């Protein structure tokens, strides 16, 4: 229904473009006046004014309609004698009424429910009809308003610019509000978690075993149970595992990525570059789950065999396998981006260096790389955040056991992997186990934020600016 309405509104207002254009043209001829803007701006003006108010109205209406209908229906049901003790029961009855209306309810239907269902469909009708009528009124009012403006030869160009600026502003506002919303939902759930588990026990605990928190209701934990729980949510093994695997990944990806980027930008001939750059970029297009089973089924066992042959115990799920494969996955980010920034270093700098007799590698090392450093660091940072946020490879190749270890041959786990483990399957949303996922998310978010901040400061301090 709404889609049809949106479609009709868009079609109608788009067609007004031509009307506005020709109308203003004829006005300028009739009255022999110079228009304040090109005729097409009057067209745009009409289009924007006829569509935006109606669309906004439709949006607001659609947001509030279900809420209002629901409160009306629950109230009428109550008046007819339906009994419900709390909000949940009221919701249940409302869902039943809706199901009866749709014909998908197969339980017993008593008279109260039946009556309510009838009044539900009645209200639905009223609301839909009035919605359509009101949208028509809105469109007509806004068209009349804007036509009047056009006839008075308004400054359509400025007005259109203003409306467009407003639209762009609203878009960025939506992005910002969404971010804030995510942060706050993380924050609130985390606060619930930290009201049960002491934040210091969480931050400095060295043992992570959330499955011990089987207690259903977080608010009903006794002191004895709390003592049992307090060392189950230690964050240290997770951040250690995360940093460790990310470190291994960067250890693989930074040199290989950077060197291949330098080769592509400085040494490769046009032909080689044209062929090999897309091939490297394909690496970035492989789904991480494919890397994951490659790591789990090929690389992990391979390391174990090698380890066994030289007398080492290697777990078949190891930090090394996961980190290595993650590093390979990240190579194209670093190589492609550093290739681009190295290319954007002006040729004149290279010429200056060659002219005093520097060789190619000296020039690259001492002039090109320093000039491209901010961009290179940026690409490394992007790669680090990819490595920290990567989940699938770790789930499959590094295991789930939260070992606090620096032995790359043992299995370990990361923050993101644990979030997955906690939230997969049926969960009680008020148990500390589930809430800990939000705490983990929040800590990960804060950690990434700090990392970015430090890196940005570093780049600012050490960058060599060329113009």
């Amino acid at each position: 229904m709404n889609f049809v309405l949106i479609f009709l509104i868009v079609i109608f207002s788009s067609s007004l473009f031509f009307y506005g254009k020709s109308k203003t043209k004829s006005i300028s001829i009739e009255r022999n006046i110079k228009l304040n803007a090109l005729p097409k701006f009057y067209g745009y003006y009409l289009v924007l004014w006829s569509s935006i108010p109606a669309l906004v109205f439709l949006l607001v209406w659609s947001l509030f309609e279900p809420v209002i209908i629901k409160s009306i229906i629950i109230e009428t049901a109550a008046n007819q004698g339906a009994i419900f003790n709390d909000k949940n029961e009221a919701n249940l009855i409302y869902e039943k009424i809706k199901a009866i209306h749709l014909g998908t309810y197969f339980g017993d239907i008593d008279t109260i429910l039946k009556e309510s269902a009838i009044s539900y469909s009645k209200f639905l009708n009223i609301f839909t009809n009035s919605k359509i009528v009101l949208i028509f009124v809105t469109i007509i009012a806004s068209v009349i308003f804007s036509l009047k403006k056009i006839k008075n030869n308004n400054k359509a160009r400025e007005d259109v610019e203003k409306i467009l600026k407003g639209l762009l502003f609203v878009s960025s506002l939506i992005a910002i509000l969404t971010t804030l919303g995510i942060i706050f939902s993380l924050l609130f759930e985390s606060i619930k978690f930290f009201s049960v588990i002491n934040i210091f026990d969480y931050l400095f605990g060295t043992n992570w075993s959330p499955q011990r928190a089987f207690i259903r209701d977080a608010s009903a934990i006794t002191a004895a149970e709390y003592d049992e729980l307090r060392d189950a949510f230690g964050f240290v093994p997770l951040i250690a595992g995360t940093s460790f695997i990310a470190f291994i990944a960067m250890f693989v990806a930074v040199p290989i990525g950077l060197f291949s980027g330098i080769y592509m930008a400085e040494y490769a001939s046009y032909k080689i570059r044209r062929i090999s750059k897309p091939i490297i970029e394909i690496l970035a297009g492989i789904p991480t789950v494919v890397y994951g089973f490659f790591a789990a089924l090929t690389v992990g066992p391979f390391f174990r065999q090698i380890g066994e042959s030289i007398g080492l115990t290697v777990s078949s799920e190891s930090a090394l396998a996961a980190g290595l494969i993650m590093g390979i996955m990240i190579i194209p980010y670093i190589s492609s981006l550093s290739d681009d920034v190295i290319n954007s270093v002006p040729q004149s700098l290279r010429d200056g260096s060659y002219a005093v007799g520097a060789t190619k590698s000296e020039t690259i090392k001492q002039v090109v790389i320093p000039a491209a450093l901010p961009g290179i660091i940026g690409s490394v940072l992007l790669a680090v955040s990819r490595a920290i946020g990567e989940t699938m490879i770790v789930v499959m190749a590094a295991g789930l056991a939260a070992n606090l270890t620096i032995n790359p041959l043992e299995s370990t786990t990361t923050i993101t992997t644990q979030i997955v483990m906690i939230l997969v399957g049926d969960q009680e949303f008020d148990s500390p186990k589930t809430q800990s996922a939000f705490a983990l998310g929040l800590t990960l978010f804060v950690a990434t934020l700090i990392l970015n901040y430090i890196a940005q400061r570093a780049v600012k301090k050490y960058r060599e600016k060329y113009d």
Partner: protein
Amino acid sequence: MSEVKIKSNNLNVFYGDKQALFDVNLDLNEKEVTALIGPSGCGKSTFIRCINRMNDVIDICKVTGNIEIDGVEINDENLDVVSLRERVGMVFQKPNPFPKSIYDNISYGPKIHGKGETKSELDEIVERSLKKAALWEEVKDRLDEPGTGLSGGQQQRLCIARAISVNPEVILMDEPCSALDPIATAKIEELIDELKKTYTIVIVTHSMAQAVRVSQKTGFFHLGKLIEVGKTEKIFKNPDNKMTQDYITGRFG
């Protein structure tokens, strides 16, 4: 009459299929300023880039013929380009200081060639080069500030200082003043006058007045050919060739 420092003999340059220089025979005298004039795209810059083999950087560029410096052929595959460029410095059209400190801009060349092993030796080279480039007084208190923060004229003098830091014999200048204002230009011209006591200088310029002011010898290029070469005075007062006459009087170009 001073001695010939650089001698080109039937020099041809190709960019891919396009020929940029045709059989150029040009002698450049030691400790003299030679100006190369001619309309854009006539091959002046291509010619001077042959003298320090900067054309090597361009993949599709091919050079045939001979260029000798002090009687030694430099258009030779086996020649050590690094030591050639140590002897033949270059200053470019647009000032191109490295995004490093003023000090590092100057010490870059000497360090690469293993000159100035101690800090005090390097300090001395930096000071000497900046003094020769008439920039020392303006920057001596801020040697650790970035070279890119200087004004355009100062940047170009910094680049000249960078070129002379490795103590070359020849300095090539590719329209060194085209991006500068008249005051900065006057300073650079003064500097060129001073530098020619020590160095052989080749300058490409679009300004006839500049060629007259700074050079002793002038070569006129047109469409990749050297049309006429001679003493600057003669070229500008009484050229042999009609085309030269037309160009210097502003009838084309």
